[in-house]
């Protein structure tokens, strides 16, 4: 859970850095998207690096989901008779929504790949001009896409707020001071990701990016 999760967090930050290039301009953004396909050349043939990364990410996602399913199944078996009276648990909202949040994120990732990678459900869907795809995607008339995007990103924020802390704990963080620090790091990183990711669709919707 911790290892695959942290790997995916690293990817989220790299992905966010790429997204923010959209504020530099259409050419910069498109150039970046094309460069992704040429990383490692001439050592690796065109798009090979990207496919290696996609393979690695898929392994991480599958591993992460498998671990989550095992944990959820064990949790269900560990409490066959439920409590008749069970108020909201005392702990954090983030911790108690990890499983449903994860499902929302998975559904979003599937949609997101069909939308902005393959272009299947994108109104433009032109692999050569990703900037145009993004602008068309988050147009005000497609508010539902922006809404789903926002919901998914906020879910990621909550997921990581508990997830990063939990991963550090799994890896052996064990002092009270370290715990405060781990929780603070988790909160700050989650906020940075949420703001970074949401800035793009909202900039498009309000017309700051055309």
């Amino acid at each position, binding site marked *: 859970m911790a290892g695959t999760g942290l790997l995916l967090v690293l990817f989220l930050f790299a992905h966010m850095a790429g997204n923010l290039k959209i504020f530099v301009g259409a050419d910069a953004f498109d150039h970046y998207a094309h460069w992704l396909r040429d990383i490692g050349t001439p050592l690796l043939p065109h798009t090979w690096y990207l496919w290696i990364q996609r393979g690695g990410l898929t392994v991480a996602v599958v591993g992460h989901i498998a671990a989550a399913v095992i944990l959820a199944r*064990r949790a269900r078996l*560990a409490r066959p008779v439920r409590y008749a*009276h069970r108020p909201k648990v005392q702990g954090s909202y983030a*911790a108690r929504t990890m499983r449903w949040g994860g499902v929302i994120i998975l559904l979003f990732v599937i949609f997101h790949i069909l939308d902005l990678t393959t272009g299947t459900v994108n109104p433009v869907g032109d692999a050569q001009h990703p900037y145009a795809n993004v602008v068309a995607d988050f147009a005000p008339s497609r508010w539902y896409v922006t809404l789903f995007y926002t919901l998914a990103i906020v879910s990621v924020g909550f997921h990581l707020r508990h997830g990063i*802390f939990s991963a550090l704990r799994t890896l052996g963080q*064990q002092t009270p001071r370290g*715990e405060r620090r781990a929780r603070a790091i988790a909160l700050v990183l989650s906020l940075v990701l949420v703001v970074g990711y949401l800035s793009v669709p909202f900039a498009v919707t309000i017309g700051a990016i055309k």
Partner: protein
Amino acid sequence: MNLKLRVWRQTDPSSRGRMVTYLVEDISPDASFLEMLDVLNERLILAGDEPIAFDHDCREGICGMCGMMINGVAHGPSRATTTCQLHMRHFKDGETIDVEPWRAAAFPVVKDLVVDRGAFDSIIQAGGYISAPTGAAPDAHATPVPKVDADAAFEAATCIGCGACVAACPNGSAMLFTAAKVGHLGLLPQGQPERDTRVVGMLEAHDEAGFGGCTNAGECTTVCPKGIPLTLIGRLNSDYRKAVTKRG
């Protein structure tokens, strides 16, 4: 005080239980929760009914015998308090209170509010001990222990094994209990020889007993009557990783 109690009644491990409502009148706000149940039981016995079975022993908050879910919270609404030390003044007059046993596959209900916590014993048997030479007590200064370690070990050692952590955990995990026992011994010089086999053995016994896995949700430490810190689980994780890497 007058209260409406809804209590889990179950005649034996194999029968189906249900919540039964009792009206309990004229209870002193200074009575403890268990004393309130005593009063109810006296009235039940006088009326020819079966009294409610519940575990209790010292009634001083140090033995770990008592414990029940009170309105869905292990040991009730007061923090760092066992059920026996919880007083009725924390409830409102006329309040409805739901009382249920700890719910976990590893803690089967014996009767009413009594559960079998033998699974904790199997975890302890798998490594919650040190192999010490017998004979006369060693001199107090024979094995120096740094104050910081002694304090941390003592904090972990205050775990009374009541099972509230399991009852509160959304995963039904006993990781806080296991971490407290592993940490308590592992922090002291006397616990070093078996440090690796202890953490591996106790975790295996934990999983075998049917407890769930830990997701660091932190419910356990919130209800723990002794306030065992969640950080001990990090220590357990770290000890486990080192033990497994060494074993190769």
